[in-house]
């Protein structure tokens, strides 16, 4: 049913700009606010009832939490009934729920086409991109939670800082010591080599893989599949040259690097871009071993 919170009047007027003693105007406004909130609640209740009565609705159970709002400080699940349409994705359903029932329902989203990587969530127990997950393929009720193993900021929004730090820890930028001489001259790269790095360049930084990996959950410093894949993307690019590759191998060989991976494969399973993460990690392990064996 509708889970819209009645507006917290105290909360809202707590800003420094407003006076402490409520004036008559304040009271009147508060009263109006209360009435408006009631009206809204009623309308939403009706809408929800209508939706629930309708055959073709889906039940969405969404995780709610907000450290800033008293009623939401205790994490809970809210239920929304959303009319189903063919082709509907989890993101569409969430947007419908937000725009119709509860505008405080919070989640990141932008592109709606699986390229921006904002909306990785935990849907029915698996890491999924909400915009790329068809409702029709899920069992009801559909449970939507924020990504596991990440700090929840609010509702479905998690803190991505740590993930970004890991991504940026592998010197994720192209490095080479020689460029072609001629003006407007590109570096040559063979088709095979481009094919080799192709999948690894598709990562959209959604963090689903990291969230699915138990090793990353246990060891906060583990670089994680996405960052290792990023390192792979450069280490395997022939344009960078041997010496740079050497440096890259040293990065991924560190204590919390590739050796942490226990081939759980869950990263590979959840990656919305179908990047063979485990394969890339394993290849880097072998590269590292080979590289080291040379000096034995």
């Amino acid at each position, binding site marked *: 049913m509708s889970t819209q919170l009645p507006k917290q009047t105290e909360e809202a007027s707590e800003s420094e700009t407003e006076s402490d003693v409520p004036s008559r105007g304040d009271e009147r406004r508060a009263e109006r606010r209360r009435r408006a909130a009631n009206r809204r609640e009623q309308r939403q209740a009706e809408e929800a009832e209508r939706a629930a009565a309708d055959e073709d609705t889906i039940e969405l159970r969404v995780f709610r939490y907000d450290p800033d709002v008293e009623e939401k400080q205790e994490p809970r699940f809210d239920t929304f009934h959303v009319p189903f349409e063919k082709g509907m994705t989890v993101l569409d359903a969430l947007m419908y729920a937000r725009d119709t029932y509860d505008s405080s329902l919070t989640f990141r989203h932008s592109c709606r086409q699986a390229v921006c990587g904002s909306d990785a969530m935990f849907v029915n127990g698996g890491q999924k991109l909400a915009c790329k997950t068809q409702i029709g393929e899920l069992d009801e009720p559909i449970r939507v939670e924020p990504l596991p193993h990440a700090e929840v900021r609010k509702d479905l929004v998690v803190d991505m800082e740590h993930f970004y730090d890991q991504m940026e820890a592998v010197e994720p930028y192209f490095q080479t010591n020689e460029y072609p001489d001629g003006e407007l001259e590109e570096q040559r790269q063979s088709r095979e080599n481009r094919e080799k790095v192709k999948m690894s360049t598709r990562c959209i930084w959604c963090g689903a893989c990291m969230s699915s990996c138990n*090793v990353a959950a*246990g*060891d*906060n410093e*583990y670089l994680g599949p996405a960052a290792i894949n990023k390192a792979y993307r450069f280490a395997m690019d022939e344009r960078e040259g041997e*010496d740079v590759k*050497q440096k890259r191998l040293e990065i991924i*060989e*560190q*204590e919390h*690097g*590739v*050796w*942490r991976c*226990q081939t759980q494969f869950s990263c590979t399973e959840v990656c919305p871009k179908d990047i063979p993460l485990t394969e890339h990690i394993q290849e880097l*392990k072998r590269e*590292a*071993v080979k590289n*080291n064996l040379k*000096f*034995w």
Partner: protein
Amino acid sequence: MAQRYSSFQQGTRMWLLQRITAGFLLVVLAFHFFLLHFVHHADEVSFLMSSGRMETMSYYSLMVLFLLTATFHGVNGVYNALVNQGLSGTKRTAVKWTLVAASVVLIVQGIRTANAWAGIPLY
């Protein structure tokens, strides 16, 4: 490149050893099971039979190697599992040395047992 003295970093070495021991154990453990459960049945076991096998030098060394590799593989595996779950700092050092101590005890005890069978008076 050339100035890297230790040619193998810790992580690489342990990882590789875990795989190598796994490969070895695969063969020996299969042999072990086969010999002691299928060829000789459990209820036929006796000191003398064990003793008889152990007196052969090749069998004796195989078993000692078996013990060493299994201990390394198992203990290193446990250690890795703990480290992967975020064990760090002093706790980690403590666990590490406890595991090393346990391994030493296990290996010493194992070799003493083998010696007892083989008739080597070192036990």
